[in-house]
């Protein structure tokens, strides 16, 4: 698993990357009450603001971690945003994407690097 400085996690499953936010991110955000996901098929560029999440405190954006195409989104978290607080690293993933340049993922931190980053 790889991690971004924006507190996203990326899991590579045979060339399809699942993206969610870390437990640390959910702790900082507080209870999440709203999520807006991109549409399947959207072509995104790294750092595009593609997801909006709102917590009880404020709105924040989630950036596309890689160039590529959105191939699946997790509608379950749109219906029940609270799931993100419950299981951010598992069932409450945000979207899956097919990167156009899979090597971009190598730039991100591994788990040890991310732990350092947030400590």
């Amino acid at each position: 698993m790889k991690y971004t400085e924006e507190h996203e996690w990326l899991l590579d499953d045979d060339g399809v990357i699942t993206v969610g936010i870390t437990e640390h991110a959910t702790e900082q955000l507080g209870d999440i009450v709203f999520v807006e996901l991109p549409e399947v098929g959207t072509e995104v560029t790294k750092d595009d603001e593609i997801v909006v999440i709102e917590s009880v405190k404020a709105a924040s954006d989630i950036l596309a971690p890689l160039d590529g195409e959105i191939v699946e989104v997790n509608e379950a978290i749109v219906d029940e945003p609270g799931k993100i607080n419950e299981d951010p690293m598992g069932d409450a993933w945000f979207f899956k994407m097919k990167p156009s340049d899979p090597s971009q993922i190598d730039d991100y931190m591994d788990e040890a690097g991310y732990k350092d980053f947030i400590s």
Partner: protein
Amino acid sequence: MGELKETPLTGLHRELGAKMTGFAGYDMPLQFSLGVMKEHLHTRAKAGLFDVSHMGQVIVRHPAGYGGAAQAMEGLVPVDLLGLGEKRQRYGFFTNEQGGILDDLMLTNRGDHLLVVVNAACKGADIAHMKAGLPDCEVVAVTDRALLALQGPAAVEALAPIAGGCEIMKFLDTGIFTSDFGELWVSRSGYTGEDGYEISVPDDQAEALARALLSHDAVEPIGLGARDSLRLEAGLCLYGQDIDVATTPVEAGLTWAIQKSRRADGKRAGGFPGAEIILDQIENGVARCRVGLRPETRAPMRQSTLIYGSEDADEPIGQITSGAFGPSIEAPMSMGYVAASHSSPETMLFGEVRGKRLPVSVAPLPFIRANFKR
């Protein structure tokens, strides 16, 4: 801004694991371990303990006793204070010459003097305003007392063992109780829409009292995050956000707090700053007013969101002043000012969120039914 001030409970907040935030110059708990959503729901279901020690407690005395203090204070607030019964409390506001609101406050008839509770951010200005406006009164800030709010249906059972007799008080009754924690000044009031109490306690007893209340099974510590969503669900204004010097009490929908005796044709009509403007607005209406707003999608519409009359209108007809997710109503909620022509309940309007016009309907306030002990 300089160093944040602490309250007598700051150490306890930290010990309880609060996430702290700066608010009106004070280091205050934003949330505790439950988190904003659960703290909110717990307060409505059982009872929540809030530290509101940052608010100002001020005693106003006059040589002629309560009547003198009340009469003098009526020159600063559009509230009937001479008609306020002993040990009763009333909501009010200081107005300016333009009819704007300088602060909102609670006023109590304490038999031989007046007790005033004002907002933290305004207290310095309020005290100066009272000293200047009440030359025959002695205006004394109470600086050796903390203020706790205990709110929710279980508040009574948590406080009764400490302040015996508080259970028979009704909404907006006040009393002074001798307790193990010194002399407590208790009012049956609060700012959550729930039954409950505000308790003024000597500084050196505040932490012990808070611990005693928290030892009750039903009571959890609650931060400012949930305090904000609770008051918004209850349709209550936050000074500096929903009301300020640029809003009049009539625009803000607070005309109910101006008793008949202070209105045109009343026994003591007017006589407060901005009376001409405010009484004219009561008579002839206002161009804009504060309304409740329910977004039709799940997206919350927060402070500063512009409101339009249609999806393609060029000019906004209003703006949101408070917006959040309402944990008890399980939906986003906002309040704000809109043109009076667009203010009747169920009017469909549009709020611009991240460049998109999303539907929002005018809704009656409060969003939840108040649970006061009348």
